[in-house]
């Protein structure tokens, strides 16, 4: 096994076996489980204090309301006296009295706070329908007259189904993709910088550099960190698939997914094509930069600060991309889609929206690949000097001298 791979696996295993990796991977699953759990508990334990009672002298009227709107009603309370007591004891949010004794229906709500908009709409709707029925009966209209009066205006939206879904697919793909890139970069920039910075100036580096070349060691470290990223992505894909399989057991969710199959397929198509390559290459170049940044810190204790410049750059890419999601023809977008560090945000945006031809995509990819190669080579060459701190040059002196040397 080559020494690069030995370093790769050592780095990989050390990261994978750490508690921080475990928490990082399980974190989103725990959050989802917690959210579902809380929602479930909340839904099942909605206390009677959020319910209302419906009281009416007309049993038919009350029954009719309860049939139409059964949720959120305390059906056990049927009298005003009991309802008042329950409200006072905070066991009931309020009570609704329905009066149909005259020609005009009347509904009165008594509660400690105003009716929420949902309940209000339900009650108004119910009263309107019932009043209309009553009006027809009073007016003794013929069925034909009733039908004529029942006519309502029609307002229909005519949206080309394909285009509408397609735009939604683009928007959702854009958000999923750049959020994914951003989160991965922010997380792993810190890990990469800290991994490298913690070795800074330690004598173990002297032992290691008497065993393998700095370039080989550096590439091994970066590959190890990239393997950790791939592991996390694979775990999320497997977890997502498992979650999807479990969710599809629920008929409601299954119906929802089937109804939006075009949307789901569209998003997956946009994620698992050339864009995924951009995500990976973007992660690689940012990881290399983070590692370089880690190697530049003055001492190992500064490891936590090491990732800041990379995080800033990543944030810049993310926040510059946001305003341009609906203006992809802007010159800045076109330029940045070729600039390494930014192309990982901007070219996928253009690919999703179909504003970049294959030639442009390949050109941008080639630039990114060449930049990664040159960058890795340059840092690999400087890595030993940076890590061992064998001279007193500052970063600017070093950059000038290394340019002269090359």
């Amino acid at each position: 096994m080559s020494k690069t791979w030995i370093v790769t696996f050592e780095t990989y295993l050390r990261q994978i076996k750490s508690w921080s990796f475990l928490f990082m991977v399980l974190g989103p699953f725990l959050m989802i489980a917690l959210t579902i759990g809380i929602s479930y508990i909340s839904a099942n334990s909605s206390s009677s204090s959020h319910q209302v009672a419906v009281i009416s002298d007309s049993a038919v009227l009350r029954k009719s309301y309860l049939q139409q709107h059964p949720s959120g009603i305390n059906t056990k309370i049927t009298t005003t006296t009991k309802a008042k007591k329950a409200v006072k004891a905070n066991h009931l949010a309020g009570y609704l009295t329905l009066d149909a004794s005259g020609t005009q229906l009347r509904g009165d709500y008594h509660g400690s706070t105003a009716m929420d908009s949902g309940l209000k709409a339900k009650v108004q709707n119910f009263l309107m329908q019932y009043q209309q029925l009553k009006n027809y009966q009073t007016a003794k209209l013929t069925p034909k007259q009733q039908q004529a009066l029942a006519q309502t205006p029609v307002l229909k939206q005519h949206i080309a189904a394909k285009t509408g879904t397609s735009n939604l697919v683009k928007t959702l793909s854009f958000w999923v993709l750049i959020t994914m890139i951003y989160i991965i970069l922010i997380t792993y920039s810190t890990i990469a910088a800290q991994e490298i910075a913690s070795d800074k100036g330690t004598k173990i580096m002297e032992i290691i550099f008497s065993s393998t070349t700095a370039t080989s060691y550096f590439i091994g470290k970066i590959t190890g960190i990239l393997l950790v990223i791939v592991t996390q992505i694979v775990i999320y894909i497997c977890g997502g698939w498992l979650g999807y399989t479990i969710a599809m057991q629920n008929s409601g969710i299954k119906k929802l997914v089937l109804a939006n199959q075009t949307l789901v397929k569209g998003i997956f198509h946009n994620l698992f094509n050339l864009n995924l390559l951009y995500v990976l290459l973007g992660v690689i170049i940012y990881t290399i930069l983070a590692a370089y940044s880690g190697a530049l810190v003055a001492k190992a204790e500064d490891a936590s600060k090491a990732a800041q410049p990379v995080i800033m750059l990543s944030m810049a890419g993310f926040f510059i991309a946001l305003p341009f999601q609906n203006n992809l023809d802007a010159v800045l977008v076109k330029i940045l889609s070729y600039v390494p560090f930014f192309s990982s945000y901007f070219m996928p945006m253009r690919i999703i929206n179909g504003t970049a031809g294959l030639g442009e995509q390949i050109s941008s990819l080639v630039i990114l690949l060449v930049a990664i190669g040159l960058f890795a080579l340059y840092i690999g060459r400087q890595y030993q000097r940076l890590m061992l701190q064998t001279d007193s040059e500052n970063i600017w002196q070093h950059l000038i001298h290394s340019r002269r040397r090359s």
Partner: protein
Amino acid sequence: MLSIQHISKEFGPVKALNDVSFDVPNGQIMGLIGQNGAGKSTTFHSILNFIDYGGSIQWQGHTLSASDFDHIGYLPEERSLMTKLTIEQQIIYLARLKGQPAKVIRPQIDDWLERFAVKGTRKSKINDLSKGNQQKVQLICTLIHQPDLLILDEPFSGLDPVNADLLKQAVLAAKDRGAAIIFSSHDMEHVTALCDQLVMLRKGDVVLHGTLDDVRDQFGKTELFVTTDWTAEQLQALAGVGSVTDRHNHRYVLHLTDASAGPAIFDALTQGHYIEEFSQQPPTLDEIFRLKVGEEHV
């Protein structure tokens, strides 16, 4: 053989090494001595290509490169290990980087731990070991792959006499294997006990170079160890005696201004009779070291 020819290194205005040359043949031990900042670690860093330098360093007739790394064992001046690993993981990781498969190294670990009397098992975390035991684990990491070139920067620092003896045995075993060994030390006793050759650096310059006997003989046999009833004052009055150090119980060291004064002093002290001690020797390495350091301040 390690051959160092005319190497120089500057750190800004400071000349760290100035035209340093010496050879370390296979199966020999070279001691590198000098005060702090004399250039010992810089010499090691140059050999290991950690820094750019002027001059030439050759190993077995060619410029030392990455392909030679597997044959080098290096112990840095400050000790440093990966504290979260176990002893076994640490030794295997570093040995694998030296091209040794884990399956070859793993069965040897217990023997090495026993040989260096490490207090801990192969499963003990480095972090849980005492400083001395961590140092011994680091020595094992340096030696376990049986290197042909051993570079030890202050290997005895922090070791008690018992552990220092264990290290000496390991170094001598490597010498017997035919390894070329170079080590630095401030303790002249270790240098005297181990080295075939020595180089003394002072502010980057070689001020002494040769075998131990050659170096000592350069200074002449100016130390005279005697046991006599004479008083220090009487001894001081003898021709050719520069100064006298009283070693108690009628034992003295006469520091001669001229080594050829020895026979005349012998005649004067013995006058044809038995004398318990009369030994004329060159200065000790420790004295030579102090002398050379002192020259700088003259």
